[in-house]
């Protein structure tokens, strides 16, 4: 039954158990995954609102575009690598495999950490170049958006480290399968956000 059919159903007409063990309207997937999807929507709303504010603020006369450091291309590479490694790790656990799991899983986390470190380095370059947070709204948005993105990644790393501890302390791949699957989705999402943020920053 499609969603439209479900909410136009006349509930007083149909009696009895509908939908077997799980009622209509339930997503046939784990609750955690549904929660993650909702969280991603919320995070998208947060980033979108910042973007909208960015475009509105940009129209005002005191805006001086910031030329982003070229280093960001390198940083992007780090994040892409991290995402790819996570996808690899996910594919391994889904097949219930074990070989290369350590390489891919830990590699993903390490590259994410490297990305955050590289973002901090690019901040310090900007600071050294005199582009302070308060000197222009374009700078402020740069720090704000990259910082917020990094903060989301730190949140992801927290879940990553929980799985890492479990894995190191002898956990089976199937124990952390859901966690890795969800982390992978989250990583791809953050990569997408980063690409959008980067594109917006460098085109304005």
């Amino acid at each position, binding site marked *: 039954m499609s969603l439209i059919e479900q909410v136009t159903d006349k*509930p007083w007409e149909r009696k009895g158990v509908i939908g077997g063990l*799980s*009622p209509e309207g*339930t*997503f046939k997937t784990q609750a955690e995954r549904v929660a993650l999807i909702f969280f991603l929507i*919320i995070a998208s*709303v947060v980033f979108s609102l*910042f973007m909208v*504010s960015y475009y509105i603020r940009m129209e005002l006369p*005191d805006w001086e575009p910031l030329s982003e450091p070229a280093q960001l291309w390198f940083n992007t590479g780090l994040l892409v690598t991290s995402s790819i490694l996570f996808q690899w790790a996910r594919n391994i656990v889904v097949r219930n495999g074990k070989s290369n799991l350590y390489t891919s899983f830990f590699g993903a986390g390490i590259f994410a950490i490297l990305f955050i470190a590289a973002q901090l380095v690019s901040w310090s370059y900007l600071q050294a170049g005199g582009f302070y947070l308060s000197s222009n709204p374009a700078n402020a948005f740069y720090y704000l958006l990259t910082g917020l993105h990094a903060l989301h990644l730190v949140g992801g790393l927290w879940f990553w480290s929980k799985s890492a501890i479990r894995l190191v302390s002898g956990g089976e791949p199937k124990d952390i399968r859901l966690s890795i699957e969800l982390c992978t989705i989250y990583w791809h999402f953050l990569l997408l956000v980063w690409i959008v943020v980067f594109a917006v920053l460098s085109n304005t």
Partner: protein
Amino acid sequence: MAYVPLADQDQEMEMHHPHTWVEKYVFSQDHKVIGVQYGGLAVFTGIIGLALSLLFRLQLGFPESVDFVDPNFYYQAVTMHGMIMVVYFLTALFLGGFGNYMIPLMLGARDMVFPFLNMMSVWTFLISVVILMASFFVSGGPTGAGWTLYPPQTTMAGTPGHDAGIILMLVSLAVFVVAFTMGGLNYVVTILQYRCRGMTLMRMPLTVWGVFVATVLGLFAFPALLVACIMMMFDTLLGTSFFMPAVIEAGSPLDYEGGSPILFQHLFWFFGHPEVYIVALPAFGLVSDVLSVHARKNIFGYRMMVWAIIAIGGLSFIVWAHHMYVSGMNPYFGFFFATTTLIIAVPTALKVYNWIFTLWEGDIRLNSPMYFAIGFIFTFIHGGLTGLFLGNVVIDLPLSDTYFVVAHFHLVMGVSPILVLFAAIYHWFPKISGRMFNEKLAKVHFWLTFLGAYSVFLPLHYLGFLGVPRRYYALGNTDFIPLSAQDLNSTVTVAALIVAASQILFFVNIIGSLKWGKKADPNPWGAASLEWQTPDTPPVHGNWGDRLPTVYRWAYDYSVPGAAEDYIPQTVPENEVLAASNDNFETNKNPSPAAI
């Protein structure tokens, strides 16, 4: 990983049964305890909000003789009253309190999907309340910028609490958003994934629909508040100019340039308008259920009620700038927002019609919850209709920022939801506590609250028509305001004091009944929805004993022709309806194989 339906998970589900008193009542992961904690904390802040309102109402009513309210404190009290009532009281109470308590019970689940996250939510909420309250004790006191916190005023020297107070407010709001998000994810996922067998979307009681749509609104709207808070905090602490234009503070220019105060207003109201419905929709849901049960009749036009909730929720995201008609934004926006705003009146009106039609040809039991519910219809009609004035952009020109606005939103999102709140508390009290409350006292409480609140807010509309501005510490010498307006103000204050004092009856009733109330039936009102069918009253941890319930029908089978009882619980299969004619229904019937 394969998907496992809830019913199959149940046998192996690990329940975190509490072992110690602390685990049971303090760091509890039981949605019912958390609901009560959320509700209690919200009521506590609500009492503070109410007390603040009395203080500034005294000043407004008797400016000559009240000298303990100075202008500074007046603005602080007005601001904190507004913010506390809207966010920390109503939002937390309806979603955190009722949402938590009702969702798993009404859906036939054992608990929320993520009980630990749920516990974190309530404790984070506590932190946000503590931060908020801390602002009363810092130098300069709490912020007095108005609950809308409009920059640049908020952080400038002419505003009370412009240093520490506003920072604490922003931090507290940000923490609240985090708490709400943790809770909100829980409610949404629980409603989607943890419904028991047979509980289709359209079999959910309207309470759940209201909470569900309100939570989705909250999840999408609160980020706007968070974004606005973060950017304002940057402006204040780090010297950025997101919202701050070049301004002069007491004669000397501040180090800001070019920011847009109107951008803040857009962000704030992008949150602020859905916020109205975050409060209203759960109230709509709860009141629908109360009306239906006590009218012994199904809620009229259930589908329309669901669609209206969804439509109102959706529309609420495209009406926000009706709060900004006179803000100096591009005036051409007025056409769009006036139109969308008045469109929202249609689904809202339909809800009102359907509530009244639920009473039509009903068998109305005038129990005290029903009194409050019917009182709600009255105040909501009044408050809803005055919204049509303010939504219509030209009428907003003379009326905005006057007492008309104050009267309108207090009726529609203050008095009306609070009447629902009382209806709901009285209605579910027997289930929650296992005891009956004192019906007589509840009715006295109703009369004082209902008549008192109406006599507070009806006159205020007329002050607004006259043009008396809101947020004025004193009216001073003004030619167009007759002296009688001050008399009216004094009357209003007296009425407000009576309303406030009568709430003591409520607390006496609730607390007294907890101890001395007579034991309640498991289902004293004869309600059909699932929460009344629990094996224990009050429900214990895990809610449903050995087996999860199975649902065979919608939640509104009242006075069904042919059935002996005037209600059929959702757990009763069709073939047992006639068989059970002479006995009361047993609660939590095991499904008979034939019915599956």
